[in-house]
């Protein structure tokens, strides 16, 4: 999808000043997810595990959207999502993982996700997340 096509799809996205946090221990996935977010004009930061994500929020950080991987060392995505919700964090959290069986998906959703997408993440899937979480205003 080109920038012009994205702009047509979400005309107000560029003005929305959305921010996102990528939580993933894989450098490959971090790079791809950041590029996807950059393509949509979403300012973003990266951390490498759930504990770092929690620490960012404890230090006063805040993001509109968190892209949360499930399997990470130190603190995984389920633990981090539960912890953030216990802290009262209301950021939208989208789980992004290769684990797709219904039981694992259910457990991740029940931790406090707002949406779930199976990896690999693509522009279409990211747009689907943004649509579902009402991150744009349709004209």
């Amino acid at each position, binding site marked *: 999808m080109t920038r012009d096509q994205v702009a047509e799809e979400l005309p107000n996205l560029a003005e929305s000043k959305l921010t996102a946090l990528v939580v993933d221990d894989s450098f490959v996935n971090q790079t791809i997810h950041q590029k996807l977010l950059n393509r949509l004009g979403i300012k973003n930061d990266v951390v490498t595990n759930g504990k770092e994500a929690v620490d960012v929020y404890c230090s006063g950080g805040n993001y509109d959207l968190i892209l949360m991987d499930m399997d990470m060392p130190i603190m995984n995505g389920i633990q981090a999502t539960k912890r953030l919700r216990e802290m009262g964090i209301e950021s939208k959290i989208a789980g992004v993982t290769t684990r797709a069986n219904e039981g694992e998906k259910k457990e991740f959703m029940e931790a406090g996700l707002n949406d779930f997408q199976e990896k*690999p993440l693509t522009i279409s899937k990211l747009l689907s997340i943004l649509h579902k979480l009402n991150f744009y205003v349709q004209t």
Partner: protein
Amino acid sequence: MTNIGKCMQGYLDEQFMELEELQDDANPNFVEEVSALYFKDSARLINNIDQALERGSFDFNRLDSYMHQFKGSSTSIGASKVKAECTTFREYCRAGNAEGCLRTFQQLKKEHSTLRKKLEHYFQASQ
């Protein structure tokens, strides 16, 4: 497939094309950079798995964990043949089949090496 052509067929799937779509003036070498990250990461995982297998005692949970990571990054770059071998290896882990793991890992390393050479050639040709 875009410019990948017949030599890559079967080795890379539509996810690689998705990555090529993300390449732009701001990041003209994006796909090559992601590929380099993948091969650096996968070399580490191959080394970890090699060492675990050489020890002789098969910790299937640990092996499965390494292979889960390997499968994840292979999926992200569109490395379909490598991904398929990762899946097979994990099935052998779940079955506790050491011989199957060893055999599959040798095949995985072959596919990985072939992919690496093909991509190196592909990036050189596209410059």
